[in-house]
């Protein structure tokens, strides 16, 4: 994303809107500027801000006059008065940023918007995670920090030797150079994204081992790691994962519950 300096009036409205804090007023030119290395092409600024189409020279003149009189101007905070935000055409590898950061762009590998994973949300239809198994969602970059693929690789390389299976229908998996070792393709390691999720499955008895590894590697990463772990419930809605997590010392009270109302068409084989 770029900002058209011919239109920008340095009102500053776009600065707090950026989830990565990548927009700032460049004092050399007195215009809003995007730090492209930190920008993850999420399009929050372009899509989320309302737009006016005022004449920039007029707006700058009025703002300058009010500033001279020390009059505080109280504009609507979510408006770009001159439509100065300008998307740029993205090519590889930078286009990866948008694929992972803009929730309105579907991932090519999965066809799913958002961060492109179904996880346990469709487990009643897919049967991906069964009783006695645990499905992990290890999310990097949220909330509001972002992550570079080199940090994700540190985690995937640490997890690969464990008794786990990476989920193949996952955008990060589709970018792995070698899933057996957890290495990610080299040409995107420096690309920054708003967030990305690594999904894997393991047996319940291996959950503590996986959790310990995730926590250990997380300490060395320049980002936030959010952990989610899922399982199939029994006929009464209970599961063996919950007491296991409590024994491991985790406190948790929030999550997602699949109601089991989805149905697999008879014509579609399991």
């Amino acid at each position, binding site marked *: 994303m770029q900002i058209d300096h011919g239109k920008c009036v340095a009102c500053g409205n776009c600065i*707090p809107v950026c989830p990565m804090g990548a927009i700032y007023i460049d004092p050399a030119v007195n215009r809003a500027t995007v730090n492209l290395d930190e920008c993850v092409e999420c399009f929050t600024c372009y899509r989320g801000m309302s737009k006016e189409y005022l004449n920039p020279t007029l707006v700058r003149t009025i703002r300058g006059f009010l500033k001279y009189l020390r009059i505080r101007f109280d504009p609507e905070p979510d408006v770009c008065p001159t439509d100065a935000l300008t998307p740029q055409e993205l090519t590889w590898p930078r286009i990866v940023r948008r694929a992972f950061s803009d*929730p309105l762009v579907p991932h090519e590998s999965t066809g*799913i*918007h958002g961060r492109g994973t*179904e996880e346990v949300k469709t487990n009643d239809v897919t049967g991906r995670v069964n009783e006695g198994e645990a499905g992990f969602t290890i999310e990097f970059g949220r909330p509001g920090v972002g992550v570079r693929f080199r940090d994700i690789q540190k985690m995937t390389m640490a997890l690969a030797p464990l008794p786990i299976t990476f989920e193949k229908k996952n955008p990060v998996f589709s970018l792995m150079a070698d899933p057996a070792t957890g290495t990610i393709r080299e040409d995107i390691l420096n690309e920054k994204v708003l967030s990305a999720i690594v999904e894997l499955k393991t047996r319940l008895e291996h959950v503590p081992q996986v959790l310990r590894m995730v926590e250990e590697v997380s300490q060395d990463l320049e980002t936030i790691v*959010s952990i989610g772990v899922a399982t199939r419930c029994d006929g009464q809605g209970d599961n063996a994962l919950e007491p296991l997590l409590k024994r491991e010392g985790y406190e948790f009270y929030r999550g*997602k519950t699949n*109601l089991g109302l989805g149905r697999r068409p008879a014509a579609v084989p399991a």
Partner: protein
Amino acid sequence: MTNTLHRFGSRDSLRDDYIIFAMAARGINDQGAPPKLQTFLRLALKHHPINVGNAVKGGIFRASKALTPLAHWRRREFIAPEEVVESIDTCTTVSAVFDDPANLEAFLTELKAADLGVSINIAALTDEARTCCQRAGITRHSVEYSLGFHGDLNRLPDRHVLELSTMCGHGMVAHNLTKKMLDWVKEGRRDPRQAATYLAKFCTCGIYNTTRAIRILEEARVGK
């Protein structure tokens, strides 16, 4: 997606936060899904949700792309919920946000009877979600637990900012904008409802809980 999994807050802070969403499994039961997803939302609208959304088109709170100087006094900041329903023209994820578990339970009862065949999930306090299901005669199939944030926690802002910003699970509500709204409410420049609306407009899938946001902004205003 884990856009509803990691909403930050204490049990008490999350007491009025229930998101229910529907989706089909790609390549399995997604054929013919859009009308079922429309039915899901139409049933939800009978039970007073505070926000509804289509993950690829947005929720009811929207940015304005054609403002004029005169429009600031009569901005259209949200669309009719039925417009969200009509926007469903492809296999997507649709959601409804409730701030009252009684309304959610009534909706669940209708959903069970409707037998849409698509996957339905509730993101909320897990024991509350289970109770709502049991009262509607539903036994949960699977569950995913949020084990919170790890890693470089020094990069995180304060709790009020996190409570408000993490209600957009795709990260579209920036920490800095949230902090700005908290400050503006404290300074009396905007009231909590206006501030919550500004924030909700950036959430592209319509899962922002404005009831909870207003409450958090009110509490933060007086220093709670």
